């Protein structure tokens, strides 16, 4: 039994690991809120900062450093930092009278650094306006900050992304469903070719089963994606390129089942649906891999960027993401194999 089912056991073990590591690993400390959000140049300001998973009190104010950053050249160091609690800080800045910018306003990121949590960034934390524009006068005031000896967070964490927060863990549930779907469709393609070469009805049964499991994964991928999108991009469906292309791809595969239903004769059904399946796979590749990369998309990895880069998938996430991909794929093949066995029984008993 072990000899035959080792891959099912492996799949389940990998999923158990995915659930435990993917749900229990903490997020890197981050900044969730800074108020007030809009400031005026030339004033001494007091910013109230709220942290996430942070331990400001443990670090102590002598180790705490804070900056406002416009770009790599223009960084302003805080004049004072006051620790109120593990998640609450007050940061004081003496804003220079002029901004180092040719616009009447600019947005600045807040950066915190201390040894207990490592460095944390809130992009576009505050918006500063100025009355008169003179970048030359801003001069050296904005050069007071230097990022030196930034600390690293001790221990393993997942990245903190402001719009995602804990929902970054969906990377181990939503994304692997698509990978597994592609593997299922790839194997169904292989069995389609096998059917066309040898005419073995068994290969046809495998194609249907793999496509059925792949469809389930695809539908679950759309549903989980919509739920995630609602709480990240604000809508279940944003008519994003990748969302539209996956919908088209699933409709093409849904038509495979409709096509099968249209034939009475088993042999014609198997042959024509095998040919259709090859075209469906050929359509899936550009729909999912090429078109979303050519246009702008809300999904990471679009607009020419390679997917899974930088902070969207760091090395700690990879330690869970790859096992998750293999685990969900093996579960998909397990589902497909059960569907196949039921269909084979049906074929043997009812179509004699």
């Amino acid at each position, binding site marked *: 039994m072990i000899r035959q089912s080792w891959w099912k056991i492996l799949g389940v073990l990998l999923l158990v690991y995915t659930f435990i590591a993917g*749900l229990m690993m903490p*997020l890197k400390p981050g900044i969730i809120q800074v108020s007030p959000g809009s400031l005026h140049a030339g004033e001494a300001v007091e910013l109230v900062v709220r942290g*996430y998973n942070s331990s400001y009190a443990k670090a102590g104010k002598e180790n705490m450093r804070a900056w406002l950053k416009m770009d790599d050249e223009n960084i302003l160091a805080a004049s004072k930092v006051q620790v109120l609690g593990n998640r609450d800080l007050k940061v004081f800045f003496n804003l220079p009278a002029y901004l180092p910018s040719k616009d009447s306003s600019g947005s600045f990121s807040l950066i915190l650094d201390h040894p207990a949590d490592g460095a944390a960034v809130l992009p576009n934390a505050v918006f500063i306006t100025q009355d008169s524009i003179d970048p030359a006068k801003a001069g050296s005031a904005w050069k007071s900050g230097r990022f030196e000896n930034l600390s690293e967070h001790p221990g393993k964490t997942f990245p903190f992304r402001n719009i*995602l*927060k*804990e*929902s970054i*863990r*969906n990377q181990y*549930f*939503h994304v692997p*469903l698509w990978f597994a779907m592609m593997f299922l469709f790839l194997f169904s393609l292989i069995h389609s070719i096998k059917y066309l070469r040898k005419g073995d009805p068994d290969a046809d049964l495998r194609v249907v089963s793999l496509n*059925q499991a792949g469809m*389930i994964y695809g*539908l*679950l991928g759309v*549903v*989980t994606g*919509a*739920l*995630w999108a*609602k*709480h990240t991009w604000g809508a*279940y469906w944003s008519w994003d390129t990748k969302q539209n292309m996956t919908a088209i791809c699933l409709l093409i595969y849904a038509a495979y*089942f409709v096509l*099968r*239903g249209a034939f009475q004769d088993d042999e014609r059904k198997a042959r024509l649906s095998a040919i259709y399946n090859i075209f469906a796979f050929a359509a899936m590749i550009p729909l999912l891999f090429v078109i979303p990369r050519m246009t702008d998309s809300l999904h990471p990895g679009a607009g020419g960027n390679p997917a899974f880069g930088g902070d969207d998938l760091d090395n700690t996430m990879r330690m869970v993401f790859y096992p998750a991909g293999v685990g969900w794929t093996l579960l998909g093949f397990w*589902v497909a194999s*059960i*569907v196949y066995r*039921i269909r084979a*029984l*049906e074929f043997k*008993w*009812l179509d004699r």
Partner: protein
Amino acid sequence: MICNRVSLVLILALASIVSARAQGADADFLESMGKMYVVLAVVLAILFGIVAFLIYLDRKLTKLENQIKEE
């Protein structure tokens, strides 16, 4: 083929229940605790989907068993 459609309808119905719940519930709740409940909703959606498919397979197998018994 009918079974196929039944399973599809079942899964879509369950999916819509999940999303309707997410919509009906206070959005602040799902986004509280650093959006942890969004992960819960996604995991539950996958669980419901797989269970719905298991129900479909179960019924299909029962029908097949009965037919084999009759023969």
